[in-house]
């Protein structure tokens, strides 16, 4: 049977078992919306800004194994989506974005709402397509889903001119796709794995360092098994939190710019480093020259060859899918005759416990002013560590990462690579759609929340009882912290004057708003929000210490072991 392009789009989404599409209609996608209207298998979630559609689809992907899908119109619809797409790209989040385009004959004519979407998004997608023939439409969408989720995942955009959505052709959805130019590696090189196992078993001061790749490939169980088997210390990047239980003794906490003292010292001083699905980025290892001053053997497992030896020379590169490689490593360790030397390991753990005693996350708490760290700790207690925690970007993000102990993967949802303010609330919406009964919290600041605050309206429409915890210190806190430390206390444009009354604002959108000003009220307020107002969106506006800083801190360009601790300032 002949179908129109618009019908084909919807049929493809149905074939892919897509349940939710986040989007915003417009001229170029009218026919697609018309087809959406005629069915109810694919539900459309109307956001209030296209950026939020992408972040919601992103949160949907990050918190599950499903692929988030977004639908936007041409021109401004697509350009509004760009920040969201770049956010997903930097964190390798699988996603399919369908954008409308002006009719084929109008392309290049500076038509109304025309933008070169494929050109604009090219550097921030895994791949993109402009559909020029309705006969290619189904295959292109199939390819988009295939590319988004395989190999190193990422967002894929399909740009569809309006005339293509009207034209007709036979619909056939391919069962599978093979592309001669795209064959991601799965199994790691056996010889390299053998070398890695040998290094691991001979290590005197080993550290396991893992990133978002472990979460993305659902390898947490295997990572946990391997780590427990070896008894080695493990640290995780901002993107990797939750892959190994944070409450376990072997976990050293997050490493990097705001990592714990013990994690950073162990990372710097180890003699064998097992890096898994992590990319040694500047916020993680600090200055690479300083990092490389210590001779250590590095084993690096990653699905993307270009992540290996990009910033740091690696001794044993293993390109492959993390769970497959971990399986093989576990198998070989079980079969190996040698075991880790107890004596060395005991000495190493003794050293690590010494570092741990520094207690680098301690903070001073008075009875008058709410410390932001305290709010996160109380959130952890009240939710039993079992919430999906979405965050925006800034100090609150770091405190959330430091003080909420994630024991499970895909519970910590934040924009690590791009650092996109305004990510938290729409991402929380996405999480809630894929986990309709889950407890979802959004930790934010008064700066970030205002970057996508219009989504309070979407939350109302779809009854999304997200709990927003705004750590309101009146400053763009992370900017202020850097200005205090590196720019002579000149707080250029980091003080936010004329803030809205967030309680009234929440109420204006039809939600519950609670202001908290005293430490003693923090826990009761959180309980009220999560228990009494379980089924409502609650905006908790915590007026927190205006001068609190995030510690420990590795200043930009400094080495990992050159941390500034709280009491040093």
């Amino acid at each position: 049977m002949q179908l129109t392009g618009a019908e084909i789009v919807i049929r493809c989404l149905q074939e892919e078992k897509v349940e939710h599409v986040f989007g915003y209609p417009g001229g170029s996608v009218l026919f697609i919306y018309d087809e959406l209207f005629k069915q109810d298998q694919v539900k459309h979630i109307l956001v209030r800004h296209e950026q939020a559609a992408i972040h919601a689809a992103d949160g949907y992907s990050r918190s599950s194994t499903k692929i988030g899908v977004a639908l936007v119109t041409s021109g401004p619809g697509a350009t509004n989506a760009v920040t969201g797409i770049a956010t997903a790209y930097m964190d390798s989040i699988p996603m399919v974005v369908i954008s409308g385009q002006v009719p084929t004959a109008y392309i290049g004519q500076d038509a109304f709402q025309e933008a070169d979407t494929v050109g604009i998004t090219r550097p921030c997608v895994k791949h993109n397509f402009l559909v020029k023939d309705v006969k290619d439409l189904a295959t292109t969408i199939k390819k988009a889903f295939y590319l988004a989720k395989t190999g190193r995942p990422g967002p894929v955009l399909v740009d569809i001119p309006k005339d293509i959505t009207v034209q007709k052709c036979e619909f056939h959805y391919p069962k599978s796709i093979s592309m001669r130019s795209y064959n991601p590696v799965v199994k790691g090189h056996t010889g390299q794995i053998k070398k890695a196992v040998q290094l691991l078993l001979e290590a005197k001061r080993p550290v396991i360092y893992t990133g978002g790749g472990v979460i993305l490939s659902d390898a947490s169980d295997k990572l946990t098994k391997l780590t427990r088997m070896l008894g080695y210390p493990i640290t995780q990047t901002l993107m990797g939190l939750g892959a190994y239980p944070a409450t376990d003794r072997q976990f050293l906490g997050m490493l990097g710019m705001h990592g714990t003292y013990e994690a950073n010292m162990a990372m710097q001083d180890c003699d064998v480093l097992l890096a898994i699905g992590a990319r040694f980025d500047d916020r993680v290892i600090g200055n690479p020259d300083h990092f490389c001053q210590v001779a250590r053997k590095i084993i690096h497992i990653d699905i993307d060859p270009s992540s290996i030896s990009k910033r740091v020379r690696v001794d044993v590169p293993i390109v492959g899918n993390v769970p497959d490689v971990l399986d093989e490593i576990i198998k070989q360790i079980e079969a190996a005759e040698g075991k880790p030397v107890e004596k060395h390991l005991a000495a190493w753990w003794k050293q690590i416990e010494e570092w741990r005693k520094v207690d680098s996350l301690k903070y001073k708490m008075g009875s008058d002013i709410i410390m932001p760290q305290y709010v996160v700790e109380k959130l952890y207690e009240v939710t039993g560590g079992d919430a999906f925690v979405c965050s925006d970007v800034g100090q609150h993000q770091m405190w959330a990462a430091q003080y909420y102990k994630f024991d499970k993967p895909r519970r910590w949802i934040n924009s690590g690579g791009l650092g996109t303010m305004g990510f938290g609330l729409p991402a929380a919406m996405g999480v809630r759609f894929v986990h309709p009964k889950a407890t979802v919290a959004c930790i934010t600041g008064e700066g970030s929340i205002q970057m996508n605050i219009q989504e309070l309206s979407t939350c109302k429409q779809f009854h999304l009882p997200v709990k927003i915890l705004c750590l309101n210190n009146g400053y763009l806190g992370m900017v202020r912290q850097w200005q205090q430390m590196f720019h002579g206390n000149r707080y250029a444009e980091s003080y936010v004057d004329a803030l809205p009354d967030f309680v009234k604002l929440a109420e204006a959108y039809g939600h519950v708003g609670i202001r908290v000003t005293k430490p003693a009220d923090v826990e009761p307020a959180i309980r009220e929000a999560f228990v009494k107002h379980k089924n409502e969106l609650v905006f908790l506006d915590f007026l927190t210490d205006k001068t609190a800083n995030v510690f420990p801190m590795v200043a930009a360009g400094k080495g990992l072991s050159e941390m500034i601790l709280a009491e040093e300032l």
Partner: protein
Amino acid sequence: MRHIISILIENESGALSRVSGLFSARGYNIESLTVAPTEDPSLSRMTIISIGSEEIIEQITKQLNKLIDVVKVVDLSEAAHIERELMLVKVRATGKDRDEMKRIADIFRGRIIDVTESTYVVELTGNTAKMSAFLDAIDRSLILETVRTGTCGIGRGDRILKV
């Protein structure tokens, strides 16, 4: 170090900008870039001359391989290979310069492919050094126009870049 990187890429619209965009986005250097379809019209062959340390060239080849449309990448300069470039030079050819120009073109095994009363167009193929040597050998003030294709290259003997 100068490297000559050969790429087989799907002959799709936008393929060239994916490659050139990669170089500009990551700050890699391009000395020259040539591209045209192969005997199989669904594939294009691209030759890029880039200068960079071993680490950078390794990253370039990895990043190129990561592009979805790229089928194969090879660094030709890793082994024996041939490089060729084509250059067309329009020169003033009057009076005594007319004979001199013909003689130098012959020495460089160039061909004169267009003749007017006052000008020649000389066609020259060879490697980059030969092109430069020719331009150095003639009187600069006589050069009216120069156009070069950029280098293309192929491995010697059994080294074959094919799907």
